[in-house]
């Protein structure tokens, strides 16, 4: 989440009237910024990871675990220490293992039970930097814990298993059904009290015309009733007009029903942001990483429980999509279009729908034929000099309404700021994000990879972060091509939700990622490397090459094992062999290579099934718990034991047969 400005937030009816103005100003800010920054060149690779935590309070006597709403106190205490740190007198100053490292940064998140931590300064590609990532993550966890109450712990589960149940799952307790969320399961106090968050939730609900609706298929165990009717749903609540939602059929049979933004935006993710050397490279990485989004989502699957029930999906993604879905019935296609401008196929939080690289390999068949674009905005951008691809991308993001508008910001348009642009950009939560340099800063063009689920241990979080970094280096070094029609990526994103998709499902993936060999004599026109450092769009003419075959022959259904480790028939080489080939081409010291080998080994084994995903481990943990009644119910007691196990795992990391060895080590000894 970005900086939180203060001001007077407009309620939806008012905000709606100003939406056009915010969009227009946002586009002018984008154009001004794009003109300033398009020539930025030779930025180094810098990257950062974001780790999000749930703060859980443990009551050992009662064997209960609850979400702690202590975010504000913890952040205040952290900020005090950070100030001391800067003045050089802090008790936790960076010594020993972390000498020379900047203290980590902590940020608020949507949920008042969440924390986000980022490294004190971005990482580079120096291999020594890669070694620091894991220890820095552990350090962040220690620092965070040091600022909590003695019975509180930061854990990295994507969701709290009993968020939204009938019992007192939060501390301090607040009853549900407040004016902002109007949820029958969670109180308004669950969200960060900063005006931005309740306004965001309220305006999404208001724009939509009803509460958000999350129906997650329940996992049917032997004793689970059929049909399963979510027993926690209250059909007799009459506090708010939205309480009618359930009486109008919002809660579906055989599904766990949830009704508030907190069920989605209260999830923890692992997000990685890269700085590209220039806009061209950023656009290329945005495109090439996009098909990897669903693959990494399935590989990191860690979300099998919602509201006290085992569910039949393994990941958080669609739940967040539904939790922030502000589309009206007209936009959803449930009512004829009268007042709204278009039907919109996806939530604001969804897989991405555009390719933006000026790459001769980008075929028109890869684009989404149903892409919704605001043509006026596109025209404005193109009149302002932007090329068609990038203008289309932003004109697609700008089909949405701004959700939180501060009236103070509407007095004067400041082209040296990006607040209106960011208003739309940062509430388009797609699985890839292309980020222009902020005005008044040294930062370059960036790309954010957003699909991964947070992992229980920092070893895993470091492994996946570094894996993605190495993949970007392999993409750039080998000039790899992962293009598939973007609708296949959308489809893959759905596939990734299935229980045990990592082993049981197949995903569309490109068969041959290698560039066609350009004979030396034909290279002259393209200056050696295909479209290396130039930012001009004139290089878009491909060198003469044989005609391309049908698009359908370029990709195939593959297992995650095929994609990660390579196909047995040698057709697709595998992401890990690609990364190892890259590592064999650069100078890596022995110690670093050893670390990297353990990270790559984790991913290799997650993909081939030797190691379990977090989701699988949690399912097994629940299934084997002595108090589990095979009825899909994850009780308070099971949740307490699960949290304790997770806490132990973050320390012992499955070594010597300790808890979690199945997802970290693969063997008990």
């Amino acid at each position, binding site marked *: 989440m970005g900086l939180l400005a203060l001001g007077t937030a407009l309620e939806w009816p008012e905000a709606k009237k100003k939406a056009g103005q915010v969009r227009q100003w946002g586009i002018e800010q984008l154009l001004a910024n794009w003109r300033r920054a398009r020539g930025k060149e030779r930025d180094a*690779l810098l990257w950062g990871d974001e780790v999000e935590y749930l703060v859980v309070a443990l009551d050992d006597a009662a064997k209960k675990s609850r979400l702690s709403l202590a975010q504000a106190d913890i952040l205040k205490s952290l900020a005090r220490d950070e100030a001391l740190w800067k003045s050089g007198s802090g008790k936790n100053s960076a010594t020993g293992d972390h000498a020379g490292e900047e203290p980590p940064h902590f940020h608020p998140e949507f949920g008042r039970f969440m924390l986000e931590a980022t490294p004190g300064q971005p990482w*580079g590609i120096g291999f020594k930097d890669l070694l620091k990532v894991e220890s820095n993550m552990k350090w962040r966890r220690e620092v965070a814990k040091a600022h909590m109450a003695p019975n509180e712990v930061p854990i990295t589960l994507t969701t709290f298993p009993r968020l939204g149940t009938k019992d007192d799952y939060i501390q301090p307790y607040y009853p549900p059904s407040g004016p902002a969320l109007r949820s029958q399961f969670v109180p308004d106090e669950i969200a960060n009290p900063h005006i931005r968050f309740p306004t965001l939730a309220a305006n999404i609900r208001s724009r939509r015309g009803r509460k958000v609706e999350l129906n997650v298929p329940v996992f049917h165990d032997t004793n689970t009733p059929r049909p399963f009717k979510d027993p926690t749903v209250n059909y007799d609540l009459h506090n708010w007009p939205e309480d009618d939602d359930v009486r109008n059929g919002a809660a579906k049979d055989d599904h766990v029903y949830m009704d508030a933004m907190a069920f989605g935006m209260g999830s923890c993710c692992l997000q990685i942001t890269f700085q590209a050397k220039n806009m061209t490279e950023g656009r290329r990485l945005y495109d090439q990483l996009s098909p990897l989004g669903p693959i990494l989502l399935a590989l990191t699957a860690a979300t099998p429980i919602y509201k006290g029930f085992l569910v039949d999906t393994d990941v958080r993604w669609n739940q967040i999509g539904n939790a922030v879905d502000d589309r009206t019935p007209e936009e959803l296609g449930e009512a004829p279009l009268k007042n709204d401008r278009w039907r919109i196929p996806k939530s604001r939080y969804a897989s991405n729908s555009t390719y933006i690289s000026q790459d001769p390999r980008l075929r028109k068949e890869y684009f989404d034929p149903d892409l919704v674009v605001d043509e006026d905005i596109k025209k404005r951008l193109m009149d302002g000099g932007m090329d068609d691809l990038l203008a289309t991308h932003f004109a697609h993001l700008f089909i949405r309404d701004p959700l939180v508008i501060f009236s103070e910001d509407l007095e004067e348009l400041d082209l040296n700021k990006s607040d209106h642009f960011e208003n739309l950009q940062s509430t388009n939560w797609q699985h890839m994000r292309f980020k222009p340099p902020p005005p008044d800063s040294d930062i370059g063009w960036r790309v954010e990879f957003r699909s991964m689920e947070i992992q229980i241990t920092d070893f895993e979080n470091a492994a996946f972060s570094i894996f993605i970094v190495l993949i970007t280096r392999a993409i750039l070094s080998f000039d*790899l091509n992962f293009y598939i029609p973007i609708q296949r990526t959308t489809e893959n994103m759905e596939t990734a939700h299935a229980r045990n998709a990592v082993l049981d499902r197949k995903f569309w993936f490109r068969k041959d990622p290698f560039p066609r060999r350009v*004979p030396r004599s034909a290279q002259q026109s393209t200056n050696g490397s295909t479209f290396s450092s130039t930012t001009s769009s004139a290089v878009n003419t491909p060198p003469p090459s044989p005609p391309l075959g049908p698009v359908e022959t370029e990709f195939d259904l593959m297992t995650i094992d095929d994609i990660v480790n390579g196909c047995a028939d040698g057709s697709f*080489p595998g992401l890990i*062999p690609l990364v190892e080939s890259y590592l*064999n081409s650069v*100078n890596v010291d022995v110690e670093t*290579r*050893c670390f990297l080998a353990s990270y790559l080994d984790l991913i290799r084994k997650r993909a081939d099934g030797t190691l379990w995903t977090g989701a699988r481990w949690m399912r097994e943990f629940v299934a084997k718990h002595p108090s589990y009644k095979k009825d899909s119910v994850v009780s308070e007691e099971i949740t307490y034991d699960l949290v304790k196990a997770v806490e132990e795992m973050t320390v012992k990391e499955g070594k010597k047969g300790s808890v979690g060895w199945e997802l970290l080590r693969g063997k008990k000894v």
Partner: protein
Amino acid sequence: MKLILSSSNIMQAGRQSVIRQPLTQKSNVELINSLRSNFLASQQIETSPANGTANGQAVSHPPSWTLQTEDALYIPAIDFSHPGLSEERDQYDITVKLFYLPGIPISRRCAHTREAIDLVLKELHVKSIDLLIVSFPGILFDADDDSEEEDNEMSNGEPDDFDSLVQTWQVLESLHEQGVIAQLGVAEFGSERLARLLPHTKVKPSVDQINLKDCCVVPKNLILYAKQEQIQLLTHNDCHDILPVGTTRELLGPAEKSGAGILASSPDANDGIQGDIEPQWVVKYTAVVKDRGVVENKGYFASADVGSCLKDRS
């Protein structure tokens, strides 16, 4: 006759360098595949319909996709006028690894080193390289046993003794002195061998590149010694005998046997260059954009002598 084989930039050709294999398996597949693939690509340009050649017999010797100069036959022809790197020199880390091959007299190493480095400098359009790692034949690192062998007889019996190693090092030091090479490195040295070499050097090796079955088991005394002498331990996965005679003959042999059609099918056949083939050296070069970790250019050159009267081995 001297042959210069080249792969051109293998990063742009991709596939041949990515092999689905366990990390620990050493291999020369990358070298062989990249040479083969570059030969094929060059032949394809030549055999476009306009040139109308193809079927074995009528092809001129040497084929037109190669280049015969006064000193060597280039396979394929290299046009050094192409820019080697897209950015300024100081953006790159250029690492070169030179493989001295088994059975080749040590007396040739001075010339070979110069020759190999010159090709790389020409190819990349640079005046110097950042790191030269040399790989001596017969030196094998064994992670399980750091007391590595002193009896390293080379495959055909000529001992690569310690004096020759020092002699070779002096050649490298002179290149360092001339500013052509910024740092020197060795490959596969255990701590004892390093300790023996160091007193005889003016320019210490700054790198020791080792190939490990499992890179997490580096002998402790090597780690300690390297740390003490400020020698960086790097990893690699090159195989030891990187270009054997048989492989070279296969690579350059008749097209029917998927060779490049340079060498005659047998020493006395007249469908190509006659005589025996003797690989002399192999050099691998890598240009990495420093602060982005992108490998922009990577390739190989290899040199082989062919003919009925190969140079006297003395």
